[in-house]
């Protein structure tokens, strides 16, 4: 069982794998080791290899096809070797000033398409909307357990972003605590709501961004894609619903389709303008309502869910790690203009 350990100075929690390991030199590259070729002949996510994954949690299937067999369009399975393991609510443990708990949680993989080489940006809008509805469904189901305090949906695309397999997939990790990064966003939004704007800071920012248009990449009648004013990374984008909502779990089917369009537009622009870079995509939304109702009363008024897309074009180095400051060599206004002026034919 892994452990969650708390850095009491920063409040940050870290997942520590406690399984036996060999020596501290484990992470040294093997002498003469060559990087593994990108495409191996086998993929555990491809149809026909369903027995190589744990039994499916759910799948969008063609009628008449059987569980754990080909015929699926989107498939959700537990991670075979999860970062956190299912279990009862873990009690917090202490020893002097140190705090930790068992690494209990959920770790699932969403295989977005049966086609190995079909990227998220190439999915039909209706298909991508189904993937987004599955995110909603899994969040709702996982949040039924109180101790799954935060459900993180994310996607790593490309080796530099941490993906080990090119077959399109997203992942879900539910943690027994609300991560520091999410808390910081919530507290920031709450502070601005209560002491400055008296309205959601995201909604206020959206109005100003739409009106200025400087950092606008794409807009449909329900979603806006922006390069954030203080972008940390070159060509970083954020996809925000125009209708205020703190809870992704409440997204409507119609909004899933509009979100699919906004996501597809964002990812296609990245691909066409920047040569298909690796990226990380993360969903930020309210923690489990069973938790947020108590910890952040009124969160539905001041928090606003969104999706962040972070292309991997630079390396995070010493200064960033030491200070939390990021040096972004591309002004977001320039990035937005470049991305906005991409010629895209829909579908």
């Amino acid at each position, binding site marked *: 069982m892994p452990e969650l350990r708390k850095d009491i100075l920063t409040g940050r929690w870290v997942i520590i*794998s406690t*399984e*036996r*390991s*060999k*020596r501290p030199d*484990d*992470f040294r590259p*093997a002498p*003469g*080791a060559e990087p*593994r*070729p990108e495409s*191996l*002949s*086998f993929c*555990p*996510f491809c149809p026909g*290899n369903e*027995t*190589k*994954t744990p039994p499916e949690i759910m799948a969008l299937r063609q009628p008449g096809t059987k569980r754990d067999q080909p015929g699926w369009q989107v498939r959700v399975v537990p991670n*075979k*070797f999860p970062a956190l393991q299912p279990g009862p609510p873990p009690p917090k443990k202490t020893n002097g000033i140190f705090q930790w708990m068992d690494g209990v949680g959920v770790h699932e*993989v969403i295989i977005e398409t049966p086609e190995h080489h079909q990227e998220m940006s190439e999915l039909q809008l209706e298909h991508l909307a189904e993937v987004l509805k599955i995110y909603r469904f899994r969040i709702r189901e996982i949040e039924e357990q109180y101790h799954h305090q935060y459900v993180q949906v994310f996607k790593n695309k490309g080796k530099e972003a*941490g993906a*080990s*397999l090119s077959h399109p*997939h997203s992942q879900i990790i539910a943690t027994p605590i609300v991560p520091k990064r999410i808390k910081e966003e919530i507290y920031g939004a709450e502070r601005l709501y209560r002491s400055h704007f008296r309205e959601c800071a995201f909604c206020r920012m959206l109005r100003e961004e739409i009106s200025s248009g400087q950092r606008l990449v794409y807009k449909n009648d329900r979603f806006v894609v922006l390069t954030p004013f203080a972008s940390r990374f070159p060509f970083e984008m954020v996809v925000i619903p125009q209708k205020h909502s703190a809870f992704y779990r409440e997204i409507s089917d119609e909004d899933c389709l509009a979100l699919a369009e906004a996501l597809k537009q964002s990812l296609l622009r990245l691909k066409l303008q920047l040569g298909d870079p690796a990226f990380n995509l993360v969903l930020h939304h309210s923690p489990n309502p069973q938790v947020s109702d108590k910890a952040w009363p009124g969160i539905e008024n001041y928090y606003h869910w969104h999706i962040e897309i972070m292309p991997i074009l630079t390396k995070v180095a010493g200064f960033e790690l030491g200070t939390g400051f990021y040096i972004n060599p591309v002004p977001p206004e320039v990035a937005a203009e470049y991305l906005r002026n991409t010629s895209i034919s829909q579908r």
Partner: protein
Amino acid sequence: MKKILLVEDEKALSLLYEEELEREGYEVVVAYDAESALEQIRKEKFDLIITDIRMPGRDGIELIASIMGLRKDIPIIINTAYQSYKDDFMTWAADAYLIKSSSLDELKNKIKELLEKSSS
């Protein structure tokens, strides 16, 4: 007698595993790298494969991918000193991922479990 292919580049370690597993009643064939392991698999029929990951030449994950091209039904155990490969989804082609230990009990139990499962 069930036949196991053991792929392990450290000779002292492979000798230890070979002796211990033979004592458990298995026939053990040892290969010291991925290429010779694939040659063995093409020549003989194995009931189970145990493979290391870090080896000279092609690594254990590439070996598993090649095995999948030959036979998908053979149970495979990854037996490695490295935790970090667990993040690599290619390891899902294996049926178990074990971290090397001075005690072989976990490995022996997993072999027994997988052989029972594959013969049922």
